[in-house]
Structures are given as C-alpha cells and as structure tokens.
C-alpha cells in the first residue's frame, strides 16, 4: 500500500472515528444523565427518610421541651453526615433552635424540609440541605472517561496508521537517500582511490626526483619530505615532522631569512652554491624556496639540489681548460723551439761533416788553408770535440723528439675513440714521464726500474688514446713521486702489467713505494685531495683519471694498497666497442 493510499484511508478512518466518538459521547452522556436522575431520585427518597427519622427524634425531644438534647442531636447529625451541608431546626416563630451550615462543594444541592408537630399547638420546622456534587462530577468524569477512552483508542489507531504511513513514506525516502548515499559512497571511494593514487604518485615523484624536497608549514615546521631528505639526514619523516627545518637539516641553517621572506611575501627565494662540509667532504648545494598556496595549506617547499658533482665538473673543466691552454702554449713554444733546434741539429751535422778528414773536399780545403787536417782531427779527438758534437746532436735530436711528442699529444687530443695498442699507450706514457723535467730532476725518474709485463696477443683497445695516455701518465707520475717523497730505498720498482680478463683489458701500475692507509686510499680519487704539500699539485690528477676511465670509458679504476707495501692501480677498460660512452667536458684543441 502506497503512502498516499494510507493517507487517504487514514483520513477517512479519522473522520469515521470522530463521528463514532461523538455518538459515543452523546450516548454516554444520555445514559449518565439518566443514571444521575435515578441517583438523585434515590437520594431524595433517602433524604426524605432521614428527614422523617430525624424529625421524629427531634420531635420526641421537643415534646419534652428538651431543646438542648435536640440541638445535641443536630450536632451529632452534623458530625456523622458530612454530606449534609445545612440542617436547621426552626421553631414555629422562626427562631432557630439549632443547626449547622457548611460550605457547599457543589452548585447542586438537594433541599428538603419537614414539619415536626410536637404539641397540639406547637410545631417546628426541620430543613436539610444535602450536597450533590459527586453525581455530576461522577457523571462528567464518567463521560470524560468514556470519551477519553474511545478517543484514546481512536487516537492510538490513528497514530498507528500515521506511523505506518510515515514508515512507508520514510522507507521510500530512506531508499532514495540510501541510493544517493551509495552513489556518494562509490564516488567517495573513487575519490579516495584517486587521492591515494595521486598521493602515491606525488610521493613517488618526490622520491624519484634527485632533489631533496621539504614541505614546511607557515611556521617553518616540517610537514613532509622525500626519501632524499631521509637519506641526507638519516632521519625518518615521522621523527622529523613538526620540527623546524633548519634543526633537522643543518645545511639549511642559514636559510631562515629566505624561508621567512617566501612565507611572508610569497616570493621564490634562491641560494646558489651553498658550501657545507660533511664528513670531511665539501658539498655544494643549490637551495630554492617556493611558496605554497593557501589552498594547499600554506607554507613553502624547499628544494635542495646537490651540485657538488657539477661544481667538480666545472672545476675539472676549468682545470682542463688550463691544461688545454698550457698544452696550446706548450705546443706553440715547442713549435717555436723546433725551428732553432732544427738549425742546431743541422749545423751540428755540418760541423761534423766539415771536420771529417776523410772527405776530399775537406782535405782539399784544409790543404788550401795550409792546415794539416789529420793533425787537427787528432787534436779534436784528443779534446773530445767530436763527442761534444755528438752530444749536442743527440740532445738536439732528443729535444726534437720531445717536441714532436708534445706536438703529437696536443694534436691528437681530439676526443675521439680509436683502436689502439695498450702496449703502445703504456710506452708513450713512460716516455712522457721520463721526459718530464720534474720527474727527472726532482723525483729521480732515472733511478726507477721499470718492469714490463705485457701479456701476449692482446686485442686492440677501443678508447680515447690521449686520455688513456694521460691516465697512465698520472699513475706513473704518482708512483714515482710517492717513492721519491718517501725516499724509498733502492731499488725503486715500477711494474707495468697488461693482461686480458674476459671482456676487459687490465692495465696495472704497481710500485714498491710507501703505500697508503685506508683513509687515503678511499679518498685518493676525490677531487682536490692530495697528500703532497706542493703548490703545483692540484689534487685533480687521480680524480680526472677516475672520471676518464669510469665515466668516459665505462671502465673502472681501482687501488690496492697497504702502508709499507706499495701501491697498485688497476685500470680496467672494456674491449667491446658498444661500451663507448659519450665524452663531455674534456676537449682539447690542437
């Protein structure tokens, strides 16, 4: 049954019940009135009897003129009949011999009287008034009770109908709302899923970014940070939340003003190349502070980018540029020296030829000059002049070779990969090291015994010749320097070993110098790290070598050393051409 039908039938029922109630009340009222009349009739009869009885008793007293007893009887009557509101005994002359009067409790009363003839010429009048409140009240109460009962029953049923109607209506409404709620729940679940996905995506995105990200509230307290921040500070987000950002990340200690400006003004603040030292390592960072809009809760995002590697690259580039400039300068100087050197060499040869007594032209010219060429030759030999000339020539030739090597080195630094012999690379590096003035004079390179242990049938190496020669030169130079500075007793050994290990070529440079402790060996490839006190030592040699081998060739450069047991550097280079890496940062100009 639909709510509307229930409503309609309910109204009809109420109308019917109202009519029935009225009829019931009317009937009840008529019945009760009849009962009331009957009751009143009974009361009248009863009162008449009492009046007669009382009158008889009073008459007996009055006959004896015992008026006092008569009034006493009336007082007893008063006490025993609370429903009698008035009783009066009046003499025939109107004098009230006795009686009483009470306040009536009802508007209806029954009044009766009787004549008491107590003497032939004497009579008295007895009046009595009786209250009749209860009948009316009872009548009204009964009527009201019946009406209320019927009304209550009808009302209860009407309420029941109404409740059924409401229930039906509410059920329909409930179903409609339930459907709405279901839809809302589905939408909510979808939104939650999307939110979770978005949150996860954002978290993953934040964690995937190499930058260190912090989200702070308008008071500078940490709300969130990514995994890079956790790695940097070794503090979990749950422990960092709520703390000041500069307390949890000391490297941002000086950024309070910038963060405050961002929070207050909504501007983006940047700090470039912040220098911090952590564990003895210099670290460079860029810091950017971005404001967060109010809808995102306000505050700011602090991004910290570790630019240490870039700075090192830049420094390496600068150093490399310097090297390039020096190389170019050296090339230019070499070119300039080459000419006079050629003249020296040429003229030495000419002198040697002009002093040769075996040449006919020389004998003829000497005869013409009246010179005994053989006796002059003997004198020159006795004075070691030809040896001097040979030395000059050798030196010039050697200088020429050095210059040629330098020119060749500078011309060949084009950055391109080519197939080269590893042995050839090693020999070139040895030669460059031996011709190094500092190597010879300062570090006694000549006293170093170089041992070559080259495996046979080694395949050609696909590499940048110049850069690998530079790496090997650095390794050889370091070994010699180390042995010289440590005053390693003779023999000072330098072992150069070549061998193949699967797809890689291994070049080992081993010395019997002082070796390194663990700390030094772990930092030896750090840029600008050096154990020497020379101003000329930039500390970049091994870091550049590491970069060239690892970054540019995809290989590896390792060290094996112990204090007092020398040092072995192993350059591991891949033999396969597909491991050639893009070269950046190191270019040379001829």
């Amino acid at each position: 049954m639909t709510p509307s039908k229930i409503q309609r039938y309910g109204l009809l029922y109420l109308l019917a019940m109202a009519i029935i109630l009225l009829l019931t009340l009317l009937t009840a009222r008529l019945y009760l009135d009849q009962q009331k009349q009957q009751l009143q009739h009974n009361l009248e009869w009863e009162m008449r009897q009492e009046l007669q009885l009382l009158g008889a008793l009073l008459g007996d007293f009055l006959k004896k003129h015992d008026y006092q007893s008569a009034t006493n009887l009336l007082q007893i009557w008063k006490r025993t009949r609370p429903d009698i509101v008035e009783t009066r005994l009046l003499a025939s002359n109107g004098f009230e011999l006795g009686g009483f009067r009470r306040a009536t409790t009802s508007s209806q009363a029954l009044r009766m009287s009787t004549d008491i003839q107590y003497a032939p010429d004497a009579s008295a009048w007895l009046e009595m008034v009786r209250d009749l409140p209860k009948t009316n009240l009872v009548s009204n109460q009964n009527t009201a009770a019946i009406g209320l009962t019927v009304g209550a029953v009808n009302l209860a049923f009407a309420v029941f109908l109404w409740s059924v109607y409401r229930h039906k209506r509410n059920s329909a409404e409930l179903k409609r709302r339930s459907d709405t709620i279901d839809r809302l729940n589905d939408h909510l679940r979808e939104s939650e899923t999307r939110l979770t996905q978005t949150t996860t995506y954002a978290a993953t995105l934040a964690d995937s970014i190499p930058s260190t990200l912090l989200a702070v509230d308008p008071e500078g307290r940490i709300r969130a940070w990514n995994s890079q921040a956790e790695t940097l500070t070794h503090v979990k987000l749950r422990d960092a939340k709520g703390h000041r950002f500069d307390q949890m990340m000391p490297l941002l200690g000086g950024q309070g003003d910038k963060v405050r400006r961002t929070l207050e003004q909504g501007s983006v603040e940047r700090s470039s190349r912040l220098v911090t030292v952590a564990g003895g390592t210099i670290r460079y960072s860029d810091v950017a502070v971005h404001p967060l809009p109010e809808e995102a809760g306000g505050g700011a995002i602090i991004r910290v980018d570790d630019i240490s590697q870039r700075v090192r690259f830049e420094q390496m580039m600068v150093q490399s540029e310097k090297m390039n400039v020096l190389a170019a300068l050296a090339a230019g100087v070499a070119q300039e020296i080459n000419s006079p050197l050629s003249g020296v060499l040429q003229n030495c040869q000419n002198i040697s030829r002009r002093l040769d007594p075996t040449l006919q032209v020389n004998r003829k010219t000497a005869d013409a000059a009246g010179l005994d060429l053989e006796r002059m030759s003997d004198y020159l030999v006795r004075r070691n002049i030809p040896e001097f000339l040979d030395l000059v020539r050798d030196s010039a030739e050697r200088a020429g070779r050095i210059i040629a090597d330098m020119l060749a080195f500078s011309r060949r630094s084009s950055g391109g990969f080519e197939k080269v012999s590893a042995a050839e690379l090693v020999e070139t590096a040895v030669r460059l090291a031996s011709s190094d003035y500092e190597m010879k004079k300062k570090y006694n390179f000549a006293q170093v015994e170089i041992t070559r242990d080259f495996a046979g049938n080694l395949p050609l190496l696909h590499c940048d010749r110049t850069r690998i020669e530079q790496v090997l030169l650095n390794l050889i130079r370091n070994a010699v320097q180390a042995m010289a500075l440590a005053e390693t007793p003779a023999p000072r050994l330098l072992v150069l070993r070549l061998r193949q290990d699967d797809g890689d070529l291994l070049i080992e440079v081993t010395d019997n110098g002082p070796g390194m402790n663990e700390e030094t060996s772990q930092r030896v490839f750090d840029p600008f790290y050096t154990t020497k006190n020379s101003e000329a030592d930039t500390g970049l040699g091994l870091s550049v070598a590491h970069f060239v081998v690892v970054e540019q060739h995809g290989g590896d450069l390792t060290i094996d050393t112990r204090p007092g047991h020398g040092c072995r550097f192993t350059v591991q280079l891949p033999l396969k051409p597909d491991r050639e890496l893009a070269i950046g940062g190191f270019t040379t100009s001829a």
Partner: protein
Amino acid sequence: MINAEPGFPGHIEKLLKFPKILVILHLFFPFNRKSTAMMRILAALIVLLTSAAAGPATAADAEGRMILAVHPYLPFQEIRKRFDPLADYLSTILGRNVDVRVGRSYKEHLARIGGDKADIAFVDPAAYVELSGRFGRKPLLARLEVEGRPVFKGVIATREDSPITDLQDLMGRRFAFGDVFSTMAHLLPRYLLQQAGVRLEDFAYYRFLGSSTNVALGVLAGDFDAGGMKEEVFREFQHQGLRPLTWTPELSEHLFVAGNHVPAEQVEKLRSALLRLHHSTKGKRIIQSIKQGASALVPVRNSDYDNLRAIFHKLARDSDP
C-alpha cells in the same frame, strides 16, 4: 442526661467480684480435697480483703484516699474534666490521692455529704442550705468568686418582642422552670413569682425543662412565654432575643465543704490550699476550669446563705401543695 460513676471501688469490685464468688463457693464446696485447708485459708484472706474493699465507699480509706464529691449538675465527663485538676492539686498539697465522685442524683449527693461519706464536697447554695438544715453544719472551706464577686443570681426572662412587662402579666401564660432542684432555674424564680402573687396554677401551664438552657430555648422558641434561668444562661442567649423581667436576689456562690470526720488540721490545710489557689497561674486555671468566669476561691461563712434560708423558709411556708 446525667451520668454517674459506679460506687467506689467500682472497677476493683468488678475484678474481685467473680473470684470472691468462687472463693465463697469453694469455702462451702471445696474443689480439691487435698489442698482444702490451704485453700480455705487463702479464701478467707481474699474474702477479708475484698470485703474490706467492697461495700459503700468510705471516706479516707486505710491508704489515705480522699473523696471530693460533686453534685450532678453537669454530665459526668464534664464534671470530671472540671474538677480533676483541683483533685490533683489537692492530692499534691495533702500528699494523698483525692478522687472525684459524682453522685448519681442530687439526693445521693446530699446523702453522701450529709453522711460524711465524702471528705470534700462541692455544693450549690441550695444544697448547702438543705445540707446544713438536715445534717447540721459542716466545716466550710471556701466559696467561688466569679468575675470578682462571690454571689450570683438568676432571672426570669421573656422574649424581647413579648408584651409581658412584669410578673403579673405571666398569669395565664406558659412558664418554664429548669431543673426542679435548681435554685436559680426553679426555687428563686418561684419565690419571685410567689412574692408577685403568681401561683403555679395561675399559669396556663408550666413545665420543668431540666436546665436553664432548655428554659431559654423554650422561651425563644415561643413554646413558653417566660422562664427562670441562671444569669449566665440568660447572658448566653440574651442576644438571640431574651429580655429580663426580673432578677432574683443575689446568692452566695457555690462552695466547698468538708466532712465532719475530717480532722481540723486537714480542714485547715484544705481551706488554706483552696484560698491561695488563685495566687498562681496554675491555680487560676484550676479555678477557671470549675466554672467559667471564676476568678478565685474566697472565704465563706454560714451566714452568707442566710438570705437563701429565708427564701426557702418562705417558699416552704407559702408553697403550693
């Protein structure tokens, strides 16, 4: 209505009544042969004791109880209510119990007093005159003083609207007396009528209505044209329409007398106690409970009642057969 208390010791008498009968029966018809001797002795003792307690009341029994007799002018309960406080007071003074006894009738009351069956008695003036005349003088203790005066009077009253103006107008009328023994409601009004030359047969009819109240009501109701009543009753109903025709002579108030058997020392003690009663607040209350308006108990003499004696003498001499 007159209620009278059973004779002393009524309640004890009731209690002992049945056992005494049993004992007497047992004396002659023993129930248990074995204890006959003991039972006989016990029975004799009981009979002796109860016999001593039975019989007419005797004044001042062996335990020192005294009797205050009051004539039955009011219902018994009312009289007890009025006189018990005095009895308690006298008990305290005398150190003996004083019990109130109300005679079953006026005649019995007089007989009790005259026979010295009561230690103290409260009597009205007429009773005292009769008492003293019949039984001789009794020790006088004190008389009432009401509203400062030890005398009272009666009145012959009629209705306010009555045409009767004097006693002679009462001839052929209807007259009401109170109690036949009442001084103020009968004897004195009758005396006055007699003095006025009105005899009882001159009335259309006359009735004795038993109390001054009935007389007042009867007159007011129109059943009687006039009636004799106590002054206090007249005052009570005067506002309802009574008018005095004539007043009686003043008589000395009610009094307390003692029995001749009461030792003089005790008589003096009683007299002193009564006369100083009004000195205390409690005493005043005791006096006021005896009669409304009573203010004290004052000394009394036999001669205070001489005028009443003279009236009675005249009445007796001139009374109708």
